[in-house]
């Protein structure tokens, strides 16, 4: 418990006497039905967490199979067709079923109302619907992938995807359905931010995680319809020879790429912006500092969300688009880089004159900083038009997006899992194992993808089942790194499962954080707050000694 902090005095007083009337959301109804039909944002978040972890496991197993196959040139454990299906499955599961919903649907769902002092999200039933829509889409996708599989890669490039005999249509239909879940969640969060803020929480007092989720939701609502439309068009073309993208029927294959990246480039920010938000919370909590440049970080989220819509052409520098287009998209790509740089500088600046407690989530913050900086910088290099010519579609690109998009997201996902574990389940995990596995994962991630940067530099294209022998040494190194990574994840699975069952009670606020979500109980009761309207501290993460508090105007 936090002694003498404004958090404890604020509105938490009556909780002891009401304890029996207001059990935690985990035990308020223990039947399966009470979980499956719940409209509680916290339970929905936990159900999302369960399935997202399941899909992460599936995607991870396929990643390991790919790495083992690439140990030697030529066939190692599978044939070319199986390999092509495996990398497609890996990409689709990881992107559509894990990364896009990972942080918003689990932690966004759980934390957003807590951080805004609301009882729930604005549309609780829509929230539950979005969970079942997600599951339905996932079932379609997995059914299509297992029942025949598809070999187009997650990008579905036409005209290959309209020629191939594999099961493109059901998988794309699955992606189409999942899109609705994404849109529903996005609308829900936007409305929640606008209408459900507790008295006193103005826009610029919202925690930065809320800002990030808000920006993400805007992208989801605006961009997802385009991929929905596109998947329908490709499925129709595949089934009925529609002639939209296939030049043999008068279509335009490059049109597909424009529409695809118009969604999929912003989708990168759907994945990574929530990660940025999580890290803003974590760096504040563990260094006991208000975020350095709060407004700069908040505005840069919106900046990334906006400019991110106009950078899609950098995926197509060598696709035959005009030189003029390459120039426009090249410049806009650099602007996205600047927004990200602002965030990085402000996170590092937050530590300045802080009080760092090096706990597991902070270890993931270090990893996150590393992957964001190096992944971002290789992104700038790739956005430099002429450098992209040799790099395009090589392992350099694979390594780059695994650093910035996957690395940053996984670091943030694991950091939030640890940071909010006490909040969600009221238990503590073993700190020592936490640090060990964090070290293993960060090392493993580097050992996996740094060789891939180099092998890409050396000229190895992506999606290669077979490769010239000169690429072998680096591929072996990458596979070795991947096994280290897998080992790290196994450790986490073990101690977190243990902590869930046998973990010690964490108390209300084990990190002594002054983030808004810690104002409520841990785990919170069903309607989050009990008694009269809670009041929130002046601003989130305010760690100044109250006696000498004198707040200058933030930039």
């Amino acid at each position: 418990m936090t002694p003498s902090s404004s958090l404890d005095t604020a509105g938490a007083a009556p909780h002891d006497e009401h304890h029996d009337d207001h059990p935690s959301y985990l035990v308020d109804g223990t039947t399966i039905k009470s979980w499956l039909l719940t409209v509680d944002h916290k339970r929905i978040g936990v159900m999302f967490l369960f399935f997202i972890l399941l899909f992460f496991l599936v995607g991870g197993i396929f990643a390991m199979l790919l790495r083992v196959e690439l140990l030697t040139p030529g066939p190692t454990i599978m044939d070319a067709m199986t390999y092509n299906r495996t990398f497609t499955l890996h990409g689709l599961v990881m992107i559509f079923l894990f990364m896009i919903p990972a942080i918003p649907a689990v932690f966004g769902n759980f934390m957003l109302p807590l951080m805004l002092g609301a009882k729930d999200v604005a549309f609780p039933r829509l929230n539950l619907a979005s969970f079942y829509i997600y599951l339905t889409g996932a079932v379609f996708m997995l059914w299509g992938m297992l029942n025949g599989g598809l070999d187009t890669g997650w990008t579905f490039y036409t005209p290959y995807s309209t020629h191939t005999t594999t099961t493109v249509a059901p998988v794309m239909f699955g992606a189409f359905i999942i899109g609705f879940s994404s849109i529903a969640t996005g609308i829900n969060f936007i409305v929640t931010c606008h209408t459900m803020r507790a008295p006193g929480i103005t826009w610029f007092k919202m925690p930065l995680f809320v800002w990030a989720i808000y920006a993400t939701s805007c992208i989801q609502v605006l961009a997802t319809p385009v991929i929905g439309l596109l998947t329908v068009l490709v499925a129709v073309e595949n089934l009925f020879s529609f002639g939209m993208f296939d030049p043999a029927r008068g279509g335009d294959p490059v049109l597909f790429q424009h529409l695809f990246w118009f969604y999929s480039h912003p989708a990168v920010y759907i994945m990574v912006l929530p990660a940025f938000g999580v890290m803003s919370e974590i760096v504040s909590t563990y260094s006991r500092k208000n975020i350095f440049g709060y407004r700069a970080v908040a505005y840069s989220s919106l900046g990334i969300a906006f400019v991110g819509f106009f950078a899609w052409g950098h995926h197509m520098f060598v696709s035959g688009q005009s030189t003029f287009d390459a120039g426009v998209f090249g410049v806009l790509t650099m602007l996205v880089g600047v927004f990200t740089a602002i965030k990085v500088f402000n996170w590092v600046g937050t530590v300045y004159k802080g009080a760092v407690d090096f706990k597991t989530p902070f270890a993931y913050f270090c990893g996150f900083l590393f992957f964001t900086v190096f992944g971002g910088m290789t992104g700038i290099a790739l956005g430099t038009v002429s450098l992209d010519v040799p790099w395009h579609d090589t392992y350099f690109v694979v390594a780059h997006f695994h650093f910035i998009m996957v690395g940053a997201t996984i670091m943030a996902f694991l950091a939030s899992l640890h940071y909010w574990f006490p909040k969600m389940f009221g238990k503590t995990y073993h700190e020592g194992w936490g640090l060990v596995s964090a070290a293993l994962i960060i090392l493993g991630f580097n050992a996996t993808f740094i060789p891939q940067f180099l092998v890409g530099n050396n000229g190895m294209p992506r999606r290669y089942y077979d490769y010239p022998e000169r690429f072998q040494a680096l591929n072996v190194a990458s596979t070795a790194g991947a096994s280290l990574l897998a080992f790290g994840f196994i450790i986490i699975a073990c101690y977190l499962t243990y902590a869930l069952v046998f973990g010690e009670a964490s108390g209300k606020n084990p990190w002594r954080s002054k983030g808004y979500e810690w104002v409520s109980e841990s785990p919170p009761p069903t309607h989050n707050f009990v008694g009269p309207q809670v009041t929130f501290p002046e601003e989130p993460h305010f760690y100044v000694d109250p006696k000498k508090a004198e707040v200058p105007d933030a930039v």
Partner: protein
Amino acid sequence: MSELLNNLLFLPESASTFAERVDLLHHFVVGTTMVMSAGVGLAALFMFFRYRRRIPDQATEYVVPTLKTEFLFVSVPLVFFLAWFGIGFRDFTWVTTPPKDAMDVYVMGKQWMWKFAYPEGPNGVNVLHVPANRPVRLLITSRDVLHSFYVPAFRIKMDALPGRYTQIWFEATKPGTYQVLCTEYCGLSHSKMLAEVVVLPQEEYDVWIKDQRRGRLQDRQDALADTSLVPPVARMVDQGQVLAGTQGCLKCHSVDGSAHIGPTFVGMYDRVEKLDDGQTIRVDEAYITQSMMDPGAHLVSGYQNVMPTYQGKLQGPETAAIVEYIKSLRTPNVREGASEGPAYDPIQ
């Protein structure tokens, strides 16, 4: 120095003029970003230690950046990023704008091989012969799905699109054999879609091409993998003339400059045409190809949209042959030899 950096970065051998430009910028960008990133990282690590927590509920100062600090955060990266963009875009424009004196080679990707055709013959599969120190313009297309023509040693790459031509050029600096890889996923044997570029000194190239045009079988070690796939050696112009007759082009397009249902082929290439929507277009390989595949897309002003599409009726090499035939009918004098170089003035 640059050799050492290339080895550290695992860059492949550099064997074209573009490779030299790219590598220079590569060193600049990678060097600067790595140093800056390491700087940020070390500063962070130092602060993690310097500002470690001493008491559990330690209070901290309220620090916010000044406008000047935020301005620095924005402007320093912006200046570097824009500088790199500037250099990169200049080089990109350079590599997508072939010089006037470039030699043309038609490249066609199909699942899962590369075909090469010289305007004056011969055609080849999976082996491209070019002279050293001479600009070569590649006119790239695909017969089925997307492919991408990538030569790591030259640092060039361009997608091959069905029904369209894309172009890129290179000037090889060292004789030798260089691998070509397909970098756009194209199905089952994507990773086996390999070819090679054989760069010969000019004299040897001249001998080679003369032998080829005489129809002599190759006796080199890197002989064609599958000779059955190689069409008979012929000038593309001759093939094109035959095709223009058999495919019915000449029913509407005259070859003596007279007016007919469609624009005359004489002097068509490199002409600036006024379109029916008021825009103008310079007739190049891409436009001629598009007009065969999708005749109504850019209609020349004054003509009816009556031409049928040849999509699916003409294969990549046949399209290329007709393009070559039209290129040979340039005014004022109808050209005899192979076509050379692009139709426009390169950007310097």
